[in-house]
């Protein structure tokens, strides 16, 4: 059954090497069609009744797309549910794999989907295999292979004419030459006209990518210089005439951007690029090659900033206004990083026009020209658009419509947008990922019982916020015979279900963390795991336990870790737990356990607070109405009872961090929080001094904590909280890192020498820590990636990125819900405090809502009032009225909906009254009017 065929293949880098590989052709590769009685496959993917409503092909047919159709973004069309019964040839699949990993993944996902009836035909090992002929290019050979395979199919299906109901195969291509040749051998072949012919789906046409040969406009004025080919760029970079870097467009000025050049070692430089021709079609985040201009052409970054961003960019580059920066021009693109962008359509002025401009939500992305015939329906919707190319004679890049996300301003749409824009992977889990889930109903096997410590007899309970479905931690406390206390923290054992290296694990590693938005959760692992199997509800579950023996002064006598089986006796909310502790009549085991925990937690907290910082941040928390899903009220206060749980989680994290670091000094995954540089505190020190004459010491976390503790002013109770909020802003980001790659482990905020994340397996970091710990205690085996510090540190980078993006997405979600709230409330007058002073504005915090907003004193189109900014204060004097940080003001809050893509909260000053600046208190209808003034 094997036919052997050897063929000669390609060369490798450096010397020319002849590679000989065997190539077997098989006679057991089936066509995969239901009507075929000759082939004997186990499963058939292609249906007997394969109808796609098309005016071109009225007969039932299977589609065979060629590589270019799949690759050049026509994939958006193929993904539509209407397209079914498609044969993907192995030749196509392999070419796609070589050329574009993301598209390859999308094709694979489609192949896995049963309803799509996609079939992979392994034509390269079938009798339809062809050898490359002398003088034939690899691409031509592949095209020919596709045609031969299609021909085989059409002939193969013809043998069943009697039952096939006129079934045909249809080759899809977008290459005129290929089409011609296919016609010659008698194939049904179509280009874009096939998609156009699809009945009832005109919008699919918009998803077609613009192809080059359709460029029907006669070449106009060339706007941009030609990009250099990659080979020339490489020579230039080696010779030092060009620099390679990542292009970052400026948020404020579309004609300006910087290229961040990663030099060797420390010398990373920024090259300024100004002007449309110099930018030369670079799009934000592209890797580009730049050439420096002669020094006399160097310029300073322009200081023209739209007022909307006036506050975001105040200190950057102000001092160096006179200093000219290295300036250059883009000579070539090394790597595009185009992705589908979210945004809205600007409908063209001409009614009949099918070309429209699209404005992305991200200001750093240029506007994109797309072709669509449904502009009127798309207006007012959030849509996604992908860039296809940017010809040198076009002012804007060309793109195509991918899909509509929904009406702008609607909750679901906006959530989708902010997920997409923050690069949060949120698609449904693919079939291959789901296939690694344990089969339901799942139960603990006897092997599990044998391997694990049985802790089912212990009085374990969980304490969580109300409504929590993913209960991943539980606690217990009991008295030992020697008088000491035994405390256990039990974490759901997710690493038992997620085995290293499989699709589920890779998906989780990519997602990095579970993202919580207001009223919505984007899971890292399928819900079956996160809120069912790995949820320690009141039943028997697998857990990873960290158990301490402590004396009554909360000093740890002994620590041990074990994989275990626990039986949670109760799932309590913080409030319920507090009630049990306080209620002296209750004396059951759970309550006793809780009291023990609470007692120890208090001691631990006292010890910790002596060294560590307690900072404060006001976050707006919304109560979401369970039926209408609209925010109904704001809650800014946290319950006090969760500090008990938090204390033990911290302790568990620290103990685990110590253990895995001892065991694996090279590859432990830890979390650090670097101490901020002293200059970060300048604003805090100045603010405290200028306002209330209070000194803040920032030499160490301890000094800072102490001085924050004593910084109280009698008639200003909120002063301390404000200071702490300000101090929080001075902090650095905490990050994950691999212990073998770094020497500074200190966690500044917690004042712990070592720290990691162990207690919440809905983060991927915790899964890795679980695995490390499992290896350390001999409960599981290791694998190579776990022990490779470079791979670990690459993983850490991804985790840090995902965490950062998750945070941004969370904030954006809060901001959006705040807007919804104020939309329903109309205009409000509230008291607030000045949090920061800028050159042309003050930032005001409204404690009642935990909301921050900006009050501008300057308008773009008219000269503002006389402003004097004093950097030393910092203070801002507006017409003899001076604003200090922490001053009390009264503002009116409203929603500015003038720009529907970027709605925002507007604040205007009520008190103190400054004529010409403040708005009168009774002016409560302003929305439309005021936004006009502001623009």
């Amino acid at each position: 059954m094997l036919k052997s065929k050897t063929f000669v293949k390609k060369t490798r880098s450096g010397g020319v090497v002849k590679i000989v590989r065997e190539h077997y052709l098989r006679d057991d590769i089936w066509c995969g069609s239901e009507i075929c009685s000759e082939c004997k496959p186990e499963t058939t993917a292609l249906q007997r009744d394969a109808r796609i409503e098309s005016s071109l092909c009225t007969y039932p047919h299977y589609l065979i797309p060629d590589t270019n159709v799949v690759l050049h973004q026509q994939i958006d069309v193929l993904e539509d549910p209407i397209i079914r019964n498609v044969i993907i040839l192995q030749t196509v699949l392999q070419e796609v794999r070589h050329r574009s990993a993301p598209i390859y993944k999308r094709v694979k996902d489609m192949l896995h989907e049963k309803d799509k009836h996609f079939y992979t035909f392994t034509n390269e090992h079938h009798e339809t295999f062809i050898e490359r002929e002398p003088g034939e290019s690899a691409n031509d050979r592949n095209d020919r292979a596709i045609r031969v395979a299609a021909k085989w199919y059409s002939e193969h299906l013809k043998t069943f004419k009697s039952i096939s109901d006129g079934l045909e195969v249809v080759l899809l291509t977008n290459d005129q030459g290929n089409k011609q040749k296919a016609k010659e051998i008698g194939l049904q072949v179509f280009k874009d006209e096939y998609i156009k012919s699809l009945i009832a789906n005109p919008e699919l046409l918009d998803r077609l990518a613009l192809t080059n040969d359709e460029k029907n406009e006669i070449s106009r004025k060339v706007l941009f210089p030609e990009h250099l080919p990659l080979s020339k760029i490489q020579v230039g970079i080696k010779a030092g005439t060009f620099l390679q870097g990542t292009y970052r467009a400026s948020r404020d000025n579309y004609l300006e951007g910087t290229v961040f050049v990663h030099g060797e070692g420390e010398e990373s430089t920024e090259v300024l690029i100004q002007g449309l021709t110099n930018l030369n079609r670079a799009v934000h985040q592209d890797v580009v090659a730049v050439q420096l201009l002669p020094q006399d052409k160097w310029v300073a970054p322009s200081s023209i900033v739209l007022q909307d961003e006036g506050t975001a960019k105040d200190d950057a580059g102000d001092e160096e206004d006179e200093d000219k920066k290295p300036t250059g021009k883009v000579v070539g693109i090394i790597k595009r990083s185009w992705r589908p962008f979210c945004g809205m359509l600007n409908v063209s002025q001409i009614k009949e026009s099918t070309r429209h401009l699209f404005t992305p939500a991200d200001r750093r992305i240029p506007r994109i020209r797309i072709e669509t015939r449904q502009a009127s329906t798309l207006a007012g919707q959030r849509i996604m658009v992908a860039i296809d190319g940017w010809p040198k004679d076009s002012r804007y890049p060309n793109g195509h419509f991918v899909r509509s996300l929904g009406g702008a301003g609607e909750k679901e749409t906006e959530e989708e947008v902010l997920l997409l824009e923050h690069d949060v992977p949120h698609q449904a889990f693919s079939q291959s990922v789901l296939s690694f889930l344990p089969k339901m109903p799942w139960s603990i096997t006897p092997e599990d019982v044998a391997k694990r410590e049985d802790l089912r007899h212990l009085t374990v309970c969980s304490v969580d916020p109300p409504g929590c479905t993913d209960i991943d931690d539980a606690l217990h406390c009991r008295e030992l015979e020697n008088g000491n206390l035994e405390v256990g923290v039990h974490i759901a054992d997710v690493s038992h279900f997620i085995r290293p290296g499989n699709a589920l694990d890779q998906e989780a590693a990519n997602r990095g963390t579970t993202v919580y938005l207001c009223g919505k959760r984007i899971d890292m692992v399928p819900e079956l795991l996160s809120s069912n199997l790995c949820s320690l509800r009141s039943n028997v579950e697998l857990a990873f336990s960290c158990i301490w023996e402590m004396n009554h002064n909360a000093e740890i006598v002994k620590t041990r870790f074990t994989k275990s089986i626990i039986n949670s006796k109760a799932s309590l909310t913080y409030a319920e737990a507090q009630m049990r502790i306080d209620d002296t009549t209750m004396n059951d085991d759970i309550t006793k356990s809780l009291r023990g925990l609470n007692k120890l937690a208090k001691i631990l907290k006292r010890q910790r607070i002596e060294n560590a910082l307690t900072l404060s941040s006001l976050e707006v928390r919304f109560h979401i109405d369970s039926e209408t899903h609209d925010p109904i009220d704001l809650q800014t206060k946290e319950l006090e009872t969760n500090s008990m749980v938090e204390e033990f989680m911290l302790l568990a994290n620290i103990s685990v961090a110590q253990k895995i670091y001892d065991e694996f000094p090279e590859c432990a995954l830890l979390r650090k929080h670097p101490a901020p540089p002293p200059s970060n505190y300048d604003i805090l020190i100045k603010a405290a001094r200028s306002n209330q004459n209070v000194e803040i010491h920032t030499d160490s976390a301890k000094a800072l904590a102490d001085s924050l503790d004593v910084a109280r002013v009698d008639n200003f109770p909120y002063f301390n909280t404000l200071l702490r909020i300000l101090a929080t802003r001075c902090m650095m980001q905490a990050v994950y890192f691999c212990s073998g790659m770094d020497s500074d482990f200190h966690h500044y905020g917690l004042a712990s020498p070592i720290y990691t994340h162990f207690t919440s397996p809905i983060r991927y970091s915790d899964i890795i820590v679980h695995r490390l710990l499992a290896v350390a205690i001999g409960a599981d085996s290791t694998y190579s990636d776990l022990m490779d510090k470079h791979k670990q540190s690459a993983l850490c980078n991804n985790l840090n990125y995902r965490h950062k993006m998750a945070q941004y997405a969370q904030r954006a979600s809060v901001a959006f819900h705040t807007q919804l709230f104020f939309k329903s409330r109309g205009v409000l007058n509230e008291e607030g405090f000045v949090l920061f002073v800028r050159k042309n504005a003050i930032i005001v915090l409204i404690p009642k809502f935990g909301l921050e907003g900006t009050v501008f004193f300057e308008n773009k189109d008219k000269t503002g009032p006389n402003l004097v900014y004093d950097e030393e204060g910092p203070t801002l004097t507006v017409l003899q009225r001076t604003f200090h940080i922490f001053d009390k003001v009264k503002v009116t809050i409203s929603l500015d909906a003038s720009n529907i893509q970027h709605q925002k909260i507007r604040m205007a000053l009520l008190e103190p009254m400054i004529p010409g600046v403040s708005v009168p208190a009774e002016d409560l209808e302003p929305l439309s009017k005021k936004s006009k003034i502001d623009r």
Partner: protein
Amino acid sequence: MAGLELLSDQGYRLDGRKATELRKVQARMGVFAQADGSAYIEQGNTKALAVVYGPHEMRGSRSRTLHDRAVINCQYSMATFSTAERKRRPHGDKKSTEMSLHLKQTFEAAILTQLYPRSQIDIFVKILQADGGNYSVCVNAATLAVIDAGIPMRDYVCACTVGFVDETPLADLCYTEENGGVSSLALALLPRGGQIALLQMDARLHQDHLETMMEAAMIACKGVSKVLDEVVRQHLQEASALSRD
């Protein structure tokens, strides 16, 4: 470019085989008249020549003589033209020496050495073209050569390499697969009794997978043994037909 996809979703390997399928094996015995036994084998594109001398008196240092059994002397070498890039040294490097030792161990376990005390059996194996599974092909070639020399063995020794990709064991790896980051294992088996003559692995592999790998390797070895058996029978038929004439 992403790395090679060693096993496609449809279950085909790079060269079109399924996971458990061997490459095409072709062999001939008695290719040289000079030697006591000889064989030539092709396993896909890996081609090897084995030559056996003996049993004969001890040559060289007599001190190595064993009084209860024969000494097995193996030499493994690779032709300079056997690999894509020309080799400098056909034998004597670390890898070849190790391979020679492995072969020696394998055949000490298979040949009934106690029948020939104070004598020596030489087995020389040369790889003419290398395309993965060098050790196993050598073992298979040497088995045929030893049989050709008429030296009694407990059983055929059949060897096969097995790799592990996507939770699936792949039988009889070719060069591209061996170099594609697969943890591979070589196993030499006496198929009838199921005894293992040699098991060698120097890659990282999860302990849980070892069992499946070994099982797959044993099945593959049994497949090889069937082919070798056929070759031997064919050879015997031809030889007897010749002698009858």
